[in-house]
């Protein structure tokens, strides 16, 4: 356990995703904030910094790709994890070009996302040292 909690922002327009992930992750000791609208999430990102951002790609209004671009611009140290229901080579390539940490194809299990988050956390810790 680190003294400072790892902070996570989750953005998905499917409310159930946030509803399930938030309590599980909090139980694991993470600090979690969830959003279903990209505009609100973006607002929040400008207010404070998150260690990890998990975002869906296809959304109303500003889509996930735009959102993660903004996030990376605001804070390059933030690790971004992308969840998507439809992964193409093009979107995968674009995401990695933009410095996305990993890619999760829907549907996934809790264990899979925990694993990715843990890996991202490890990377952050290594960089901090």
């Amino acid at each position: 356990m680190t003294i400072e909690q790892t902070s996570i922002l989750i953005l998905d327009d499917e409310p159930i995703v946030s509803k399930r992930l938030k309590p599980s992750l909090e139980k694991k000791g993470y600090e979690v904030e969830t959003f279903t609208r990209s505009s609100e999430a973006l607002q929040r990102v400008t207010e404070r910094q998150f260690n990890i951002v998990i975002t869906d790609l296809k959304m109303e209004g500003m889509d996930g790709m735009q959102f993660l671009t903004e996030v990376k611009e605001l804070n390059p140290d933030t690790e971004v994890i992308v969840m998507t229901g439809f992964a193409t080579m093009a979107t995968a390539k674009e995401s990695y070009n933009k410095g996305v940490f990993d890619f999760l194809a829907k549907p996934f299990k809790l264990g899979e996302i925990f694993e990715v988050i843990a890996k991202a956390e490890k990377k952050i810790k290594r960089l901090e040292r």
Partner: protein
Amino acid sequence: MKISCFFSACTIRQRLIFINSMTIVFVFVLISIYTFQLITVENNLVTMERVDDLFSSILGLRRYEKNIMLKLDEDNVAKATQSISIIEMYLNSLKPEIMTEEGNRLFIRLEKDFNRYETTFNRWCSGGGCLEQLPGSADFRLIRQQGQELVESAVELARLNRKTISGRFKTILFWLTFLPAIVFSVGVLLFFSQVKNILDRLGSLKKATKSLAAGKFKPVVITGSPDEITQLILNFNQMGVELEEKQEQLIQSKKMASIGTFSSGIAHEINNPLNNISLSTDTLLEEIDTMGMEERKEILDDIMAQTERASKIVRNLLDFSRAQSAEMQVLYIDYILHTTMDLISNELQIHQIELVKKIADRMPQINGGLQQLQQVFLNLVINAEQAIGESGEIIVKSYVFDDNYIRTDIIDNGPGIIQENMEQIFDPFFTTKEAGKGTGLGLSIVYGIVKKHGGYIEVASVEGKGTTFSVYLPTYQGNKKGTN
């Protein structure tokens, strides 16, 4: 140049050359006939003149003969002898001009009569005997009788000559009027049969071109002999086939493009509820022991709802594919519209949306699937309703368009469609509605059904003012296949 050109196996060019050549030949033949006839008539006239001269000489001879009998003057015998030699001369010059059998017979008779007369006269007058004999003597009677016969023969020859000339004129009249009239009528008939053949085929080509422009290609059947029009029809048919192929390719490439939207749509629409189910189940599995009843129930409800959502998508997909086939029947559009509006009027009232129906009377019937067409109008009205949201107006207007179509407009005063979405609205899974609210299949189902019915759909939208969807369905044309 072949005679058969009139009937078959020749190009229009060959036919035109043939007809023109025939005309020229005909004109030349006609001119030759007239020239020949006129020359003949002229000859006959000359002959007639000579016959007349001969006749008047014979009359002169008979006058001298009478004078001799009456013993009037001294020189009558000399004058008569002179007349005889002149008549002889005339006869000789006339001889080669007599052509007909009848003329020959009369001429020989005249010659014989003349010779007999001449012999009698010479015998009678030699040594001045004629001057001394009294009237009433045998010689007098003989010469008078023979003179009379000579005149009669001459009269008959002259009559025959006149008859010949009048016959010639009749022949000329015949060649001049009757023959050209016959030839002209036959020519006109032939020309029209040729022209009709050409015009008929051009007409069917014209019709085919028109229907090709309307998007319905049917190869023109080739009839008659191969000529320029046959070539034109062949080229047209080939063009039609190629156009269809190109269109097919275009549709195919559009399909490929929409398959992108389609599969990403399916993936997105199905994977999201699946993901929700997966996460919920996983949570339940991990923490079922530490959870309260309420929490477990909530998660199970979520799973149920998400399953329902996924199955609804599959149902819509089935509707979408079912839109490809249905039983066709002859229907009145107002029946379809009224029954459809009945289904939704309650829903519209709840949302304070006024429905205005402007359906024309006595519209022709259409051929289609009732349920499919109901779905078309239901989807469009539901779309209009969802676009409006709360309180507004939907106008359903139906009328005959362009004689062969029935146009139905569904007009809403909602927010309209933004320009950049216009191209995609008929693509499967394209939606502007929130996740879980629309599958993006509605309009593509509508599009598929309308297309299946041989119709088309148009959309006009002004941002902030509203949207009009116009459905064009072909009217039923008896047993002719108007669909597909």
